[in-house]
């Protein structure tokens, strides 16, 4: 069966140990976490955690069953097949030189990014997009004097309820 990246949305009670339970289920049962993002939902007592994980269909089903057993987990949904919008964000710090400055500005435009901070010799860019967009953007910026970056996990929402 085909191994691919799966996006799983988990609704949980917002309790201090719930993330540990979820992380523990992944590590203890031999699944991997590729990326993770979490924050409250409309109801602040409920948190949505979106995790991406590599695996085939069968592993994802096993994972869903194990996650569902956690008492504070309210719902587990595999968004990979649910036609969801998936985005990530990255903040990139660039070294500024006379040579690359203009090019960076142009790139920000093409990437539909933003400059969120500007110093004499560095700037910070913000780019959002799908996983592939971000991968491409980073590869591109790397050649232009990228200093460092921080990338979020995937956030995702279904297109239809």
């Amino acid at each position, binding site marked *: 069966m085909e191994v691919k990246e799966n996006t799983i949305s988990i609704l949980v*009670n917002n309790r201090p*140990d719930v993330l*540990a*339970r979820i992380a*523990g289920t992944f590590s*203890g049962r031999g699944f991997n976490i590729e990326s993770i993002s979490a924050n409250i939902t409309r109801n602040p007592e409920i948190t949505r955690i979106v995790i991406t994980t590599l695996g085939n269909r069968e592993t994802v*089903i*096993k994972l869903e*069953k*194990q996650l*569902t*057993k956690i*008492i*504070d*987990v*309210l719902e587990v949904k595999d968004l990979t097949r649910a036609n969801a919008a998936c985005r990530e964000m990255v903040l990139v710090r660039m070294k500024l030189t006379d040579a690359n400055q203009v090019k960076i500005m142009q790139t920000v435009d093409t990437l539909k990014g933003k400059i969120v901070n500007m110093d004499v010799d560095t700037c910070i860019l913000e780019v959002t997009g799908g996983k592939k967009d971000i991968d491409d953007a980073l590869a591109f910026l790397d050649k232009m004097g990228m200093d460092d970056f921080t990338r979020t996990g995937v956030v995702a929402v279904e297109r239809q309820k």
Partner: protein
Amino acid sequence: MKLTGAQVLFEALQKENVDTIFGFPGGAVLDIFDELYRRKIRNILVRHEQGAIHAADGYARVSGKVGVCLVTSGPGATNTVTGIANAFMDSIPVVVLTGQVATSLIGGDAFQEVDITGITRPCTKHNFLVRRIDDLGRIVREAFHIARSGRPGPVLIDIPKDITKSLIEDNDISWTLSLPNNNKKVSIEDACAKALDMIRQAERPLVISGGGVLLGRAWDELRTFVKLLNVPITSTLMGLGAFPASDPHWLGMPGMHGTYYANMAISNCDLLIALGVRFDDRVTSKLDAFAPHAKVLHVDIDPASIDKFVKTNLSIASDCKPVLQLLNKWISDKSFTMPEKQTKAWLEQIQKWKEFAPLTYCQSDKIKPQYVVETLYRLTEGKAIISTEVGQNQMWAAQFYHFDYPNSFITSGGLGTMGYGFPAAIGAQVARPDKVVVDIAGDGSIQMNIQELATAVNYDLPVKIVILNNGFLGMVRQWQELFYGKRYSHSNINNVPDFVKLAEAYGAVGLRATRPEEVEATLRKGLDVAKTVIMDFHVEPEEGVYPMVSPGAAISDMVLRK
């Protein structure tokens, strides 16, 4: 009226009808023990917290109630971890109450502080750290609910010391559960109709039943089901006793040390009706050779057990009881018949396998461990509650004590915990004072919780310990004999200590038999005294457990004898 946290705890336990707990005190639970002093609830004071948790587990297994244990923070809590993992693997409902350092000290490496909720997260069904006294009543009720509902399991509640002391107005205590309802009601009708179709078409049907039938109290339904259909049945180690071993439909236990005929039946059936089992690797061995010709119908309350290893053709994520009730109803309503002709050849074939390789052993001039178990079975008329330690003793108990009654066999199936049997027997005896309770033990395992002799003697619990004393960590020795060129690396324990003197030192009765002729008399004597007894049987040191499936082999590929 104002109540302390300790009082709230006991009020909550009372609401859950807890009358007995197993505990051991310490600094963080002094206030709880102080309150216990005033209460009617009975505490069995153990000598090691591992004893408390195993006793609570044994108590739960025979009584069907939730077992409770109470220990202090730090080392008290960590001493229960093996027992918690044990209960988790075997799905046993227990609630573990641990003391914790005061809320203000948590996280600062205080004296006897340990992050027990962190440590036990992967081996509890759920656990709680009580942060506010307002939550205590609700949490205790939730813990009991979680422990016994669905697939049962251990739940731990960590209670900081300041909370046991602080006060709450009784009207302010919330007792209402606030748990997410994950147990979606599954409709079983459609699936059961499909199941009947599968059964109707089968020519070589076989039932495999497990611990889930006992936990779901579905043994009557199982018995009816098997008789109505006239199908053969095998039960896993965890499921022994759900179906009477003396019934001709029964094939014994499957798996690594199962019977030849149970394993052959699995390997050749065309329909495997799996009820409350989770297909442990000790049962399946090589997966692609397990039930290779069968359609698999799997009923289990835990969806995560379904299609975990063995692929099913039809599964019902439900308690076994309602499923069996419905199937039995349809079957006996005569809307269903399975032509006798259809399964005749199969039943005859099974009979031939039974005759070809029955469970057996050879007598010699040394005591055979199997003979001890068989004689115990005869003398107790199969009516004792048997617990076991782990190793050869456990397998011989499972093979040669023929369990006819539910909840009469308590053993560490999933975790294989040496030291489980004796404290579990104590818990069983506390739950059933009317029963003969016997721990079938190895000379190695019994030393892992031997200190509980003091507990048994103190509470006048007439638990019998039958040591199959082979001078070896026998199961390890057997593997070394078979797979490691007889290099007995660190498996010889040299017949130390003198178990008779040891029993006497604790105020128990010690008996010994060294020759086959003495076995029956020793057992009679031990069973007759209403006291804690150790019976030390010096058995053939290098006896092996057979039949045996080599690790990783197909279950049909059995070594029948040495």
